[in-house]
């Protein structure tokens, strides 16, 4: 296995008396494609938030590229190589599509003048034609692409795609999937959180399953989905 670029060890997160994450270990190797699964409320987004800095973990540590990052604010983690998309797209509504990408290029991508690189990124995700449109006017699938473009502009080593395919048609899912595979081929490790199983099975080299804040399975996709504990979590006794 390639060297780990992200190692999260014994991550705990509580909201009052509710235990959202209970000693979760999570690793991603360089260039790896990982599927993160779990029923609603299992702690997937909480784990992503703890990894990217939107939430502070109560226990455990997160190491990215050999450096501990779990006490850093989000923007510093992004600059160190971990980017994310949001489950519900969050475009900068007053800006054009191009300007949305330029913000990430300027602040996270180390660009001094964002203007030159934004078109290439927008071309990669198929939004170049809409570069000068207001981000408010985008369709749902284009908003997902914009989320990806903004994350890519940060030049990440690891991208966490949080339900980027939710609510999309099969053709649109395939389009996003192809985009993520191309991105992975360029060397970016990707963690995909998704409920669309055929997309996860097609994409992931490894699957990790969370249930009620605990990791119950982690390994080869085919083996994981046949795991009795995983079946129980999804289908009941």
């Amino acid at each position, binding site marked *: 296995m390639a060297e780990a670029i992200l190692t999260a060890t014994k991550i705990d997160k509580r909201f009052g008396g509710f235990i959202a994450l209970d000693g979760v270990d999570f690793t991603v190797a360089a260039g790896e494609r990982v599927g993160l699964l779990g029923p609603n409320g299992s702690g997937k987004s909480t784990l992503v938030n703890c990894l*990217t*800095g*939107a939430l502070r973990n109560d226990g455990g540590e997160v190491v990215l590229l050999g450096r501990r990052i779990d006490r850093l*604010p*989000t*923007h*510093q983690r*992004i*600059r160190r190589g971990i*980017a*994310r998309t*949001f489950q519900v797209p*969050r*475009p*900068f*509504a*007053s*800006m054009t599509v191009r*300007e949305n990408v*330029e*913000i*990430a290029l*300027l*602040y*996270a*991508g180390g660009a001094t003048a964002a203007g030159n690189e934004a078109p290439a990124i927008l071309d990669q995700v198929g939004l170049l034609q809409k570069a000068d449109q207001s981000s408010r006017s985008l369709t749902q699938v284009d908003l997902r692409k914009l989320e990806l473009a*903004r*994350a890519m*502009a*940060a030049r990440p080593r690891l991208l966490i795609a949080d339900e980027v395919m939710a609510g999309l048609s099969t053709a649109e899912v395939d389009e996003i999937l192809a985009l993520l595979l191309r991105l992975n081929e360029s060397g970016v490790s990707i963690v995909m959180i998704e409920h669309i199983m055929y997309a996860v099975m097609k994409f992931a080299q490894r699957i990790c399953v969370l249930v009620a804040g605990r990791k119950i399975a982690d390994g080869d996709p085919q083996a994981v989905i046949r795991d009795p504990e995983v079946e129980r979590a999804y289908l009941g006794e």
Partner: protein
Amino acid sequence: MRRHIGFLLAALAVALLVYLGTAWIGNDYVYFAGYVVLQYVVLATAWNILGGYTGYVNFGSAAFFAVGVYTTVVIHKTLALPVPAILPLGGLLAGILGLGMGYLTLRLRGVFFSIATLALAIVLNSMIVNWSFVGGGRGAYVIRPREIAFFTSYVQYLFVLMLVLATLAVWIARMVERSRLGRGLAAIRDDELAAEAAGVPTLKLKLIATTLSGFMMGVAGVPLPYFVTYVEPSGTFSLGYAVNAMAMPLIGGTTSWLGPLIGALLLGTLQQVATVTLSATVNLLIVGILLVLFVTLAPDGILGLGRAIVRRVRRRDG
């Protein structure tokens, strides 16, 4: 930087024309009225850096303005420095207040942040009321020199000073808007969480915005004691400053440097006209009615309205 310098030179040229126009009229009332309007240009522009560019609504503008005012009162009683020398000091103190307020309150969002800024003005008001060195609740007189070199009157001198300050404030706001900082502030205004996830250091940028906004408001307050010659807390912390500083950008348009300028010139002039034709007390009523109309009918202000009309015309023609 060259285009910013170009804009500054153009703005200074416009300011010079304004000065020549008022000098040609040669009536001291024009300087009185003009000073007040220009003071609001600075205040509205300063408010807009935090409220418009960053999306953090500050109800406590009067507090920062008052820091400038009372810095002058203190300096007048101690060192008696000329007004231009007090400007950076008043600005610096108000900027430090902005930084402190930002550090304590910027973790709050929306209405909670706004309430905290309102509380700041009340706290500062109480402190001034109980500080007898600056006159306390009874107020303080600041006697201005009878004459000043190169100017026909001291009020004309203060008018020119405020004209320069307004020009610089607009120039700074335009520069911020078009800089990397301005883009980061706009991202914060649109979605703070997404801004952080795009690498924007949100807390640092918000602190810069509160400091800069506070600095400019403080500077706006520095010449006031020499303009009115008597300052007391209820006038200095008056609701009028906070409401105008907020209403002018909202009516002009908050996303551009031009919005507060248009709003301040329009509302400020309207209020001055109302003062001499109707009554001084209807000023806030005018602001209130216009604010309600704009917030409900044209939430993007005059600029937004103009842009919408241009878009519609282009669509019809194209």
